[in-house]
C-alpha cells in the first residue's frame, strides 16, 4: 500500500516560480523516506501539498489513500502527524494549552504521557515563544504524535538547533519513527542517513533519484582509505603511477582510492605500495556516506 503519492504534480507559485515540475513518486506504507535537495528544490512545497496548505497547479496528490483536499482527506489528516519547518511560536499560548488544542483537534491523545515522554512537564505553563529552540521542537513533535499517527511528515525538524538539542531531537525522532511511515525533508545528509532507509533527491523541482539507501550504496563505487607515514602526497603519487583514481580526504589527511572489488584488490595494492617503500599504516574499506552518494548523483546527472 502507498502511504503517499504524487501523480504528475506541478506547482507554480503566483509570482511564477516553478517549485515542482511534473513530479511522480510514491512512498510505500512503512517506509522511512527522506526528501533531499538543495534550497529551492521543492522539498517544502511537496510537504505543504501533502498537508493541504497548497494546491497543485497540475496533477494529483494522495495521502494514505485519500486525495488531498478530497472527501476522505480530513479523516486521513487525523492519521498524519506533521512537524512544520521553523514555525512561529505563540507568545500567548502555553505548551500545555497548545497540546490540549492538538488533542481536541485529533480527537484523541494522552497529553500528560507525551509531556512526560518529551520532558515537557516542567514547562507546561511556559508560553511557547519563551521555550528554547529544542523544547519548542519537542512540543511540535509531541503535538504531531498525539494522534498516534500512521504517517509522519517532518519538514526540517532540526534546522537551527544547536548540536545538543539536535541530538536530543534525533533520539526522540528515532523513537517516534519506529513502526511509522515517515517522510523526512532535510538538508542534513547525516540526519537523513541516520533516520531513513529510502532516498528521494529533488533538484529544480524534478525527482533526480528515488531509491533505497542500501541500493544506492551498492551502486556507489567502493573505496579504500589509506594512510602512509610519508604523507598523502607520496601516496597519491604512487597510486597515480599505478593508474588508480584517488583523492585526498581533507578531513583527516588520508587518501581515498576507488577500487572495483576491495576484498580482492586491496591486499595486492597494499603489497605493491609497501614494496614501493611506502610505510602504509592504515588500509580499510569505506562505506560511501549519503553525502558522497548525494554529491556523486548530483554531479553525474548535471
Amino acid at each position, binding site marked *: 500500500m502507498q502511504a503517499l503519492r504524487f501523480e504528475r504534480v506541478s506547482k507554480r507559485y*503566483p509570482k511564477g516560480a516553478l517549485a515542482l515540475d511534473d513530479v511522480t513518486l510514491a512512498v510505500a506504507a512503512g517506509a522511512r523516506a527522506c526528501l533531499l535537495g538543495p534550497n529551492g528544490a521543492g522539498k517544502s512545497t511537496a510537504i505543504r501539498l501533502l*498537508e*493541504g*496548505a*497548497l*494546491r497543485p497547479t497540475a496533477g494529483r496528490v494522495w495521502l494514505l489513500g485519500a486525495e488531498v483536499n478530497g472527501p476522505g482527506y*480530513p479523516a486521513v*489528516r*487525523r492519521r*498524519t502527524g*506533521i*512537524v*512544520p*519547518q521553523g*514555525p*512561529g*511560536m*505563540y*507568545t*500567548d*499560548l502555553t505548551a500545555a*494549552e*497548545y497540546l490540549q*488544542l*492538538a488533542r*481536541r*483537534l*485529533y*480527537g484523541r491523545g494522552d497529553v500528560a504521557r507525551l509531556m512526560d515522554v518529551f520532558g515537557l512537564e516542567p514547562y507546561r505553563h511556559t508560553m*511557547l515563544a519563551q521555550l528554547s529552540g529544542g523544547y519548542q521542537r519537542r512540543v*511540535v513533535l509531541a*503535538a*504531531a504524535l498525539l*494522534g498516534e499517527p500512521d504517517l509522519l511528515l517532518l519538514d526540517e525538524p532540526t534546522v537551527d538547533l544547536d548540536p545538543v538539542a539536535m541530538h536530543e531531537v534525533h533520539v526522540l525522532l528515532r523513537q517516534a519513527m519506529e513502526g511509522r511511515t515517515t517522510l523526512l525533508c532535510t538538508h542534513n545528509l547525516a540526519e537523513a542517513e541516520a533516520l531513513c532507509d529510502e532516498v528521494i533527491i529533488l533538484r529544480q523541482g524534478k525527482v533526480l533519484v528515488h531509491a533505497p539507501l542500501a541500493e544506492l550504496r551498492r551502486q556507489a563505487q567502493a573505496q579504500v582509505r589509506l594512510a602512509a607515514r610519508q604523507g598523502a602526497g607520496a601516496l597519491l603519487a604512487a597510486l597515480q603511477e599505478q593508474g588508480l583514481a584517488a583523492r585526498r580526504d581533507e578531513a583527516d589527511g588520508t587518501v581515498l582510492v576507488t577500487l572495483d572489488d576491495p576484498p580482492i584488490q586491496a591486499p595486492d595494492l597494499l603489497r605493491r605500495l609497501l614494496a614501493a617503500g611506502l610505510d602504509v599504516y592504515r588500509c580499510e574499506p569505506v562505506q560511501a556516506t549519503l553525502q558522497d552518494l548525494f554529491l556523486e548523483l548530483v554531479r553525474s546527472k548535471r
Partner: protein
Amino acid sequence: MSDPQAAREGQVSRMVQVRALLGKELRQLRRSKGALLSATVLPFLVLVLIPLGQVLGVRGAADGPRLPLGSALPPGLAGLIQDPAQLIVQVMLPLYITIGGLIVPSVSATHTVITEREKRSLELLMALPVSLQDILLAKLLGTLVLALVVVVPLFVVDAVVLLTVGAVSPGYLALLFIVLLAALACSIGVALLLALLARDFRTANNLNGALIGPLILLALAILFGVPGLQRLVVLVAVLLAAGAGAFLVGARWLTFERYLA
C-alpha cells in the same frame, strides 16, 4: 458506514474542532492587553460618552439652528431640524451605534487574524488536522464574542439612561439594537476580507480605515437622506448587504496559499 452517517460524524467533529479553536482564540484575546484596550476604550467613547453627552446636553434647548433663507435640507433632516433632541436621537444616535458596531470587531479581528499571519504561528495550526475555513470561522466567532461582550453592556448603559430620561421608546431602542447587530455582522464580513488583503498590522489598520470609512459615510448618507423610521430599516439592510458581500468575496478567494502569502 453509510455516507450520511459519515457526513453526520464529520459535522460533529467539525463542530468540536471549531469549538476547540474558538477556545484558543478567546484565551489569546483575554491575554492581549492591546486588543482588549482598543476594543473597549473606543466603543466606550463612541457608544456611551459621546451620544449620551449629546442627548443629555441638548435637553432643554428650545430652538434649532437658524438656517439661511432658501436653503434646502436632505429629506432625513427636514422634519427634525427644528427639534435638536430628535435630531440627536434619530440621526446621531444611530450613527454612533453604527460606528461602535463597526469598529469593535475590526479592531479585534486585526489582532486575531493578522497577528497569526505576521508571527507565522499559523504554520503551527496548519500542522494540526484542521481546515483554513475552520480556523477563520473560529477567529471570526471569537471576534464576535468579544464584540458582544463589550458592546452589549455598553448598549444596556445607553438604554437605561435613555429610557430614564425619556429620550426614546423601548421599541425605538429595540430598533437601535438591531442596527448594532447589523453593524457587528457587517464588520465581521469586512474582517474576513481584511484577512485576505492585509499582510501586517500597518496594512490592516490602513485597510480597516479604507473599508470601514466608506461604510460610515454611507450610513451618514442614509441617516440624512431617508426620512422617518425607514432610515433605520434601510441602514440595517445596507449594513447586512455590505457584510454579506464582503464575506462572500472573502470566502470565495481565501485559501491557505493566499492567507500565507
